[in-house]
């Protein structure tokens, strides 16, 4: 039971980082990306390759994952600078679909459909942190640090400028904000955090393949952020807890056959998304607008 709870807690922490990173894009910058799993995946592959080829240091892997994702976030920043609204959603969709194909075809880097297996146990400065409890503590520390960073940044001039751009791009530009630079930075920041989450995920699962980085995953993370409440610190975390506990809770209900749990779970979160948008568009943690 303890092992089960630890597992759930670790996954929740990793997804907490991921949801918080998407919140930077959706909530603060108003960039509605549905390609977030791509950057989660990039971080995971980068972390896994580092561990497999060089050293299994989890901190270095996080940095590498973050760096790779931040560098490739330009693929997302480019359309974000050119188009808005529907067009950007469509562009990020295109990016997501292309990335899944690349992930499953670039065998040398990603192991294709088979994925990368046998990622060595995580170490931190030479000490073994691969046990469930130490790993959870490390992941929680990363989450705490990143949340603190997001809070500080969003309270400061960077965050205010971003939210100004989100609410009215032309007004922000008229006030002399460098819209291009700010948006690019925000995308890089959000994607880098997703990359960190990816690297942690790779170590935790000791195995990564393309199945974890598909459009469904992007939608799941988006649902977490939206259901929890965008542009709040606690919102994404609430969303993560709800959506991760949902399948765990459903498996205890005796009247649903185990083979149908996936579909029932999808049904519930689809309904939750629609109903929340109709009755409470700011999410559970968001104030009424």
């Amino acid at each position, binding site marked *: 039971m303890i092992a089960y709870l630890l597992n759930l807690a670790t996954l929740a922490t990793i997804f907490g980082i991921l949801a918080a990173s998407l919140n930077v894009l959706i909530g603060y910058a108003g960039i509605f990306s549905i390609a977030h799993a791509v950057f989660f995946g990039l971080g995971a592959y980068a972390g896994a390759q580092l561990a497999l080829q060089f050293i299994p240091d989890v901190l270095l892997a996080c940095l590498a994952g973050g760096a790779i994702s931040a560098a490739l976030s330009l693929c997302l920043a480019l359309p974000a600078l050119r188009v808005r609204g529907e067009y950007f959603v469509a562009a990020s969709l295109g990016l997501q679909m292309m990335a*899944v*194909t690349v992930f499953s075809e670039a065998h040398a880097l990603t192991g294709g459909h088979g994925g990368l297996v046998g990622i060595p146990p995580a170490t931190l400065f030479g000490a073994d942190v691969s046990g469930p409890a130490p790993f959870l503590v490390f992941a929680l520390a990363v989450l705490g640090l990143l949340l603190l960073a997001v809070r500080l940044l969003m309270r400061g001039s960077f965050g205010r400028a971003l939210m100004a751009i989100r609410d009215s791009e032309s007004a922000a530009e008229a006030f002399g904000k460098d819209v291009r630079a700010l948006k690019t930075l925000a995308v890089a920041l959000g994607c880098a955090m997703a990359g960190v989450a990816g690297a942690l995920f790779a170590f935790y699962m000791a195995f990564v393949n393309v199945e974890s980085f598909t459009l469904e995953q992007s939608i799941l993370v988006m649902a977490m952020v939206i259901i929890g409440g965008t542009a709040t610190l606690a919102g994404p975390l609430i969303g993560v807890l709800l959506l991760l506990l949902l399948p765990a809770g459903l498996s205890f209900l005796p009247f649903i056959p185990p083979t149908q749990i996936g579909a029932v779970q999808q049904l519930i979160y689809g309904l939750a998304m629609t109903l929340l948008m109709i009755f409470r568009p700011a999410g559970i943690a968001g104030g009424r607008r």
Partner: protein
Amino acid sequence: MLFLQLLVSGIQTGAIYALTAAGFALIFGATRVFHVAHGAAFALAGYSFLALSQAGFPWFVGAGAALVVAVAFGLFMDFLVYRPIQRHEGSFFTVFVAAFGMSIVVQSLIELGFGRGFVVVASPLTRAHEVLPGLYLADIFWVAVGVALLLFGAVTLFLERTRIGIGLRALSENPELLRAFGLSSRRLSMVAFGLGSALAVPGAVLTAMTSGLQPAIAAQVMLVSLAAAVVGGIGSLRGAALAGLLLGVVENLVVSVLDTQWSAAAGFVVLFAFILFKPSGLFGQAVAR
């Protein structure tokens, strides 16, 4: 000959895409609602046709039921999902998430009812004949192309010649003026949703008879019609239809150069390129950033 064969099957896929995308574009053009649950209407129509065909009814009963279900679903979305949202806030992303939630709901309901696997309605129309040496063609090719041309012509006539059609075009250009003129924008948006959803029906029926249906087809069709609508220029019916045809052909022709795995991604490369370099699409007006 392989090239010709792929071109022919590309045109068949493209005809189906074109009609479905035209429906999406019609709805978006008139109401400015990014109806991502359009794929769900397609899936519902396809599965209704399948259920009735399996129950032994003749094809036209099945197709009629599919039409009723698709139109009912479109109107349901308009009345119970989009309108309540637009009443209080109506931000583009709220609508998008709600519609996405509904398409997840539909997909999981289909999964619960019909299972995950591929299902096909057997039809004598799909039997292929050798038309030229090495070129096989089934009668259904002519049905698909004929139906697409006929319906597209009918819808174009409807939009250009009838009072309601002209009202629909006016709605897309200036809703306030339309109301001042004394026309009801609510009634017109009902027409747009009904007609747009109806345009998904032939594609759904033909797909049920050719490549088969699976629950995920809702998402797939949504992606394709969205891509076609953007590439064609958002709101342009002609553009969406042409782009749908183009995507179908590209998807099939790519197979002659690259592995089949790349065929799904090819359409999205086209989409991504269009958004980056020509966001107004083939026939759209220039868009503001």
